């Protein structure tokens, strides 16, 4: 009995905080927009019964998503931004994780602390801070002009570059931590064995270190890729008018257009798209656990 109770807690949690809201969103996505409060139709009415209610629902909004090219372009553009920024996060995160894992043991908790430290301030404030750094009169341009590298200020803010910078900065810890934990467990004698068998330092890195931190790389990449795909704050604060991301489209449908049904349809499709990487991520985690046993 107690066992069932313990198992039930996470399921109730999941039901209340994910499945029920999802069902509501799904229902809205099948409704029609209406000038009302809430701004969609039909509302469930006990008097008319469930059959009449269901008869009012249709897939019109999903069809609409395929008809207007804004949506699939936004999905594709989000995908592209997510892939590229995951790649850059990996590029920046791997050396940091490697340096941390190679640092003397007494330094590691401090370094770990420094990686997590940014979470102590609000994410929003940190993104605003980047606006101050990247704008035309911002610190970066002032500094570059002071050193004489450039004579005209660079336009970074409100471009895709600013979005990439913001994403890489924000999501870096999610990349570093799983890679670090994989590298920290790496047995140093494996590298020595590779060198003993004729590898140079560099080839030992590619043939031993990288394959053995593969699970960390995969985990970190998914931890960055999945949230970035639906990212809204960074593109809307740092991006320009041509930065197309599905999170931004979703926001505009909800709050500018007040078209809740189409917005819900966008959200449902986004969720379905995310199921694929999430399943892959889960499988990777499972494989890792099996390998450790």
């Amino acid at each position, binding site marked *: 009995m107690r066992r069932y109770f313990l198992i039930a807690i996470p399921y109730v949690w999941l039901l209340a905080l994910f499945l029920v809201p999802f069902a509501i969103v799904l229902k809205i996505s099948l409704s029609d927009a209406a000038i009302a409060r809430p701004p969609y139709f039909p509302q469930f009415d006990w008097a008319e019964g469930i059959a009449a209610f269901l008869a009012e629902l249709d897939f019109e909004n999903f069809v609409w998503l395929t008809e207007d090219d804004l949506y699939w372009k936004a999905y594709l553009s989000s995908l592209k931004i997510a892939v590229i920024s995951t790649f850059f996060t990996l590029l920046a995160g791997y050396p940091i994780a490697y340096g941390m894992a190679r640092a003397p043991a007494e330094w590691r908790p401090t370094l770990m602390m420094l990686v997590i430290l940014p979470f102590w301030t609000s994410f929003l404030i940190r993104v605003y801070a980047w606006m101050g750094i990247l704008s035309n009169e911002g610190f970066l341009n002032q500094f570059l002009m002071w050193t004489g590298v450039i004579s005209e200020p660079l336009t970074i803010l409100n471009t895709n570059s600013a979005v990439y910078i913001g994403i890489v900065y924000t999501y870096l810890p999610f990349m570093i931590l799983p890679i670090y934990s994989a590298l920290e467990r790496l047995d140093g*004698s494996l590298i020595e*064995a590779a*060198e003993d*068998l*004729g590898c140079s330092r560099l080839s030992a890195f590619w043939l031993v270190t990288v394959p*053995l931190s*593969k699970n960390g790389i995969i985990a970190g990449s998914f931890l960055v890729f999945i949230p970035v795909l639906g990212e809204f704050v960074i593109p809307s604060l740092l991006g320009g008018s041509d930065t197309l991301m599905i999170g931004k489209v979703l926001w505009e449908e909800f709050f500018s257009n007040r078209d809740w049904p189409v917005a819900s349809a966008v959200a449902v499709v986004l969720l379905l798209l995310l199921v694929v990487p999430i399943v892959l991520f889960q499988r990777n985690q499972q494989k890792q656990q099996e390998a450790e046993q």
Partner: protein
Amino acid sequence: MNTSAFEPWNDPEAKPLIHFQNVTKRYGEFTAIDNLTIDIYEREFYALLGPSGCGKTTLMRMLAGFETPTEGTIHLAGQDIAPVPPNKRAVNMMFQSYALFPHLSVWENIAFGLKREKMPKHDIGDRVEEMLRLTRLEKFARRKPHQISGGQRQRVALARSLAKHPKLLLLDEPLGALDKKLRQETQFELMDIQEKTGTTFVIVTHDQEEAMTVASRVAVMDHGKIIQVATPDRIYETPNSVYVADFIGDVNLIEGTAKPNGSDVYAMSWHEGHAPLAVQSPNGFSDGQKCHLAIRPEKVSISADKPETADNAVQGKILDIAYLGNISTYHVELPTGAVIKAQAANTRRIARRAFTWEDTVWLSWTATAGVLLAE
């Protein structure tokens, strides 16, 4: 002397494969290797034996190239190897943890070093198959290291380190992770493989039995110094110091003063009121010099009556008996309070054992049974 015996160290003409010349290794204030000079010959099975922290692993890591000497030079086949990085040395190492690559199969692990040499593909295949046959691993070629047993992993590590035909193979506690029975079997396998391949082996171990079994010569180390290098039998029978005598096997040490009594023969007075002990020993002692008689328990015989012909005989009382199945060790307390261990084979069932606790017995040994040691 048998001329066919393998004893290059006695041949003044023989050139050593490895030559350590006044090698010192310091880590800050700590001296791991202290002004050490040794020679290791081709085809030797050389064991470095010592307690943990004695510098034996440092010595091996210097041979592999993971450490460089602070002072002195190391020559391999006449060439100074200090500037040669580990990946360019004709030396391979078998790691204590085996260090098998967990993401590669047994086959790929063995092929790893060969692929780095840019060997043609079918030659790699042939060589790997050969190594698999040598180590009887043919059936496990496709498995990953975590899918095979500890003993099999040990053999993969050996196959991988031998695959590149190294001039010198280093083995760092190669059998430490195996249980006793498997360890004994593997010792003979190692000797067999060493003989078949003709590779020079240097093994690091803290297990004296292992060193004695496999090695052609044993180097006993302590605090970064070599205390004695000799064949296993000489290490055991004629240790050069109390440290070696005590470290290798079981030993009785009797303290006394030497009195020369003919060439190489001494009368050692050890306790007032007891007759001096007759000892024949090659080590020179002056009259009245303090010395230790080191004598192995199995060379002390135990009897109920005083033996008539023995060179040395003392009486005592049995304090303790350690029954080990095949043999028993009797701890006999002498009237002086000293305890001497004597070993006897259990030729009869335990119920018919001749001696028991509190029995008064005679211990006897010949003049040549022990050695006199200064320190």
